[in-house]
């Protein structure tokens, strides 16, 4: 790692997210106060539930698992200058693909069935990403537009597939059968195995971005695609690869959630995970390791929300409010800087362009 990259990982990298989280909590606290609730009690319950006990913390990490992957997916896109709003659709495609492989392929030992089921998730997530990437590279269609549209398409398509083709026999609910035990991810120290996959992948992604020619290619395209093209980097191929990898990681997020937690595909299970990934990636300043604390924080809020409602009488939607505020305050400096430079100098490249 060169010094310059280290520099981009100091002050602004963690101070801005920290301030964003604090301001968001203060504002949400004031709003709770207006509602007649005790914000201190609410926050205490929220964080004691999710971080105060081993059991609670393991639930938090469980919630954080798909969030780390969704955040990583968005991060990889940002590094190559792409704003992947479609992590949600990619994650859902991956979850459905994995669930299908998990319950249809029978008679396989776990060490074959499990990897195959995971690869299905990566494949379908990556495929959806690749569609947006190819449209961007060859037709110049902005990825924000295509990924938003693909989110809708995937939502409709997955509902249709589950209702008419993959529905659990004799079941009224829109959901598939459970995946076979041979395709389930085990728990390790009462943590879903997927958590370790996610952390390892984030570390690998960080190393690749910092040390390999592929990482350098991504980064160069993200920062100045004209210079990248001129220097002989195939910008089209890089953009497509980045979107495909981004989608694949989101798909993996859907896969580990399906195989480790829900064991089946049901549309409501994955609601919003991909969108949380956007908040997490921006909170982590598009750094492959920076997203981990962000994912754990948000995972903790999700894990502690219902107990907070029970004890402090604050609706679970408060967590959504908090996340919205965090997103607002964490992007505000990025956005101002983006417009100030009107170039592609920010950490996240030209993601708004």
């Amino acid at each position, binding site marked *: *790692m*060169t*010094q*310059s*990259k280290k520099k981009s990982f100091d002050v602004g990298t963690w101070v801005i997210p920290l301030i964003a989280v604090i301001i968001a909590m203060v504002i949400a606290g004031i709003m709770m106060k207006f509602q007649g609730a005790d914000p201190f009690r609410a926050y205490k319950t929220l964080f004691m539930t999710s971080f105060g006990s081993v059991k609670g913390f393991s639930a938090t990490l469980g919630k954080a698992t798909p969030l780390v992957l969704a955040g990583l997916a968005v991060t990889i896109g940002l590094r190559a200058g792409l704003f992947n709003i479609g992590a949600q659709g990619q994650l859902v495609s991956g979850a459905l693909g994995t669930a299908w492989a998990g319950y249809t392929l029978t008679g396989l030992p776990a060490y074959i069935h499990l990897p195959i089921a995971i690869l299905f998730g990566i494949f379908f997530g990556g495929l959806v990403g690749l569609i947006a990437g190819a449209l961007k590279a060859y037709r110049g269609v902005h990825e924000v537009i295509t990924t938003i549209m693909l989110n809708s398409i995937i939502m409709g398509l997955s509902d249709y597939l589950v209702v008419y083709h993959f529905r659990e026999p004799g079941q009224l609910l829109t959901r598939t059968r459970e995946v076979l035990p041979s395709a389930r991810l085990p728990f390790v120290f009462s943590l879903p195995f997927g958590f370790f996959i996610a952390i390892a992948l984030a570390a690998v992604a960080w190393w690749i971005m910092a*040390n*390999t*020619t*592929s*990482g*350098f*290619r991504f980064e*160069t395209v993200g*920062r*100045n695609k*004209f*210079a*990248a*093209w*001129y*220097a*002989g*980097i*195939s910008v089209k191929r890089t953009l497509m690869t980045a979107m495909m990898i981004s989608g694949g990681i989101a798909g993996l997020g859907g896969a580990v959630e399906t195989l480790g937690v829900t064991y089946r595909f049901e549309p409501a299970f994955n609601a919003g995970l991909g969108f949380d990934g956007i908040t997490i990636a921006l909170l982590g300043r598009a750094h492959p390791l920076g997203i981990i604390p962000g994912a754990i924080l948000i995972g903790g809020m999700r894990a502690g929300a219902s107990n907070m409602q029970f004890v402090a009488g604050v609706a679970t939607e408060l967590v959504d409010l908090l996340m919205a505020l965090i997103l607002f305050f964490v992007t505000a400096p990025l956005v101002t800087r983006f417009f100030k430079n009107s*170039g*592609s*100098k920010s950490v996240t490249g030209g993601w708004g362009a």
Partner: protein
Amino acid sequence: MSALLEITGLTKQFPGVLANDNISLTVKAGEVVALLGENGAGKSTLVKAVFGLIKPDKGEIKISGNTMHYGDTAGVIAAGVGMVHQHFQLVPVMSVTENIVLGDEPRKAFFINRKAARAQVIALSERYGLQVDPDAIIEDLPVGMQQRVEILKALRKDVKLLILDEPTAVLTPQEIDELLIVIRTLAKSGVGIVLITHKLHEVMAVADRVLVLRGGKAIGFTSPAQSDEAGLAQMMVGRSVVLRVDKTPAKPGKPALEVVGLQVLDDRKLLSVKGVDLVVHHGEILGVAGVEGNGQRELVEAICGMRHRIAGQVHVDGAETKDLHPHAIHAGGISHIPEDREKHGLVSSYSIADNLVLNQFDVEPFAKGWVRNISHVNTNADDVVAKFDIRTPSAQNLASSLSGGNKQKVVVARELSEDLKVLVAAQPTRGVDVGSIEFIHNQLIAARDRGTAVLLVSAELDEILSLSDRVAVMSGGKIVAIVDSKDADRNYIGRLMAGLKE
């Protein structure tokens, strides 16, 4: 007569750079003062301070006797200070009159009083002796005329002090001569003029006094009567500079770059390269002279694989190069110093070290297989920074922290780092200080002497004439003449550039 502008002891410290060190300058009415210095010498900091755009650490700025304060840009303009920027601030689709009155239009009820506006422009142009057609559309005008509109726009606001920032960068030799006359005329009418430049012959031709800046310090005042170009250059860079490039006669070898019947469209999809044939031999420099916008940019981009060729071929050592593949073309032996270094040449948020390997980051020794060898990247950078005299505290600093000349050195160093068959250098010294120009010129000659075929495209006729072995003049998308540089006559080439026949 009291001073229009009086700067005393201006000091401005930026992190790591003392941009202005105790600079004092007075400009009187009717006087032309040249501000001469290399890039990064502190010229623009000084001007920004005058406009109240930056806060000086020390010192005072008075305009017509009144002290000006930081942030009071409006006050500075109201006091009669105008500026003509290097990049014109004109609306291309609007007329001369519209551009001149823009922002302060004479009105009749809710409407612009076009008649009055037109009359104002005519009066203004007569008062200063600057002829313009008030009804012409800006984009139809030659660059020199556009600049005249820009000057009139500044003068309309009762300007007492006019600052011209590198005004000749985009002009033809004839247009430069005209501008210099305009500057003298304005001075005679009582306007004080500050001419920011690094071109020595302009200073000699037009300035009453010269303030030479170097590294943020005022090296001293002089005047054309007391000094000559060599003397000014020495003050500017702190050592004697060879203005004419020393070079031995070329020993041209086999043809290296052959361009046959090339036709290229510009960004507006208009044919801008209209069938160009060129041959550049190993070991020679072919200069392409021409006023900007006559197809040179498109020609260069098509040769380098950055722009689609609608007809014709480009051969390197007899092998045809593919269209639109910068990488393939680079692999085929063409190296390119791009015209727009900020856009194509550099990733400004990367370190200097990373920028120096941008086109070879994935080959030995900078990468072993898939993994980058960052220690090699860094040792390479330290070597190059020393060898090319790139002024930076460390090769790990961001490219965006460098001055224009040093950025260009990074690009040149990178493009010359391999043994090449063909080097295409587009405007290699634009916006580059004299010291760096000399260095870059010597590098181009050295590449030639190693047997590289160099295609040099430049808007600076002097640069073309001093470096090239042969000169091709480009006008209206065609090569109108190719002459041996020994026989090249400046005026003759200037007329060809302007599209005049003989």
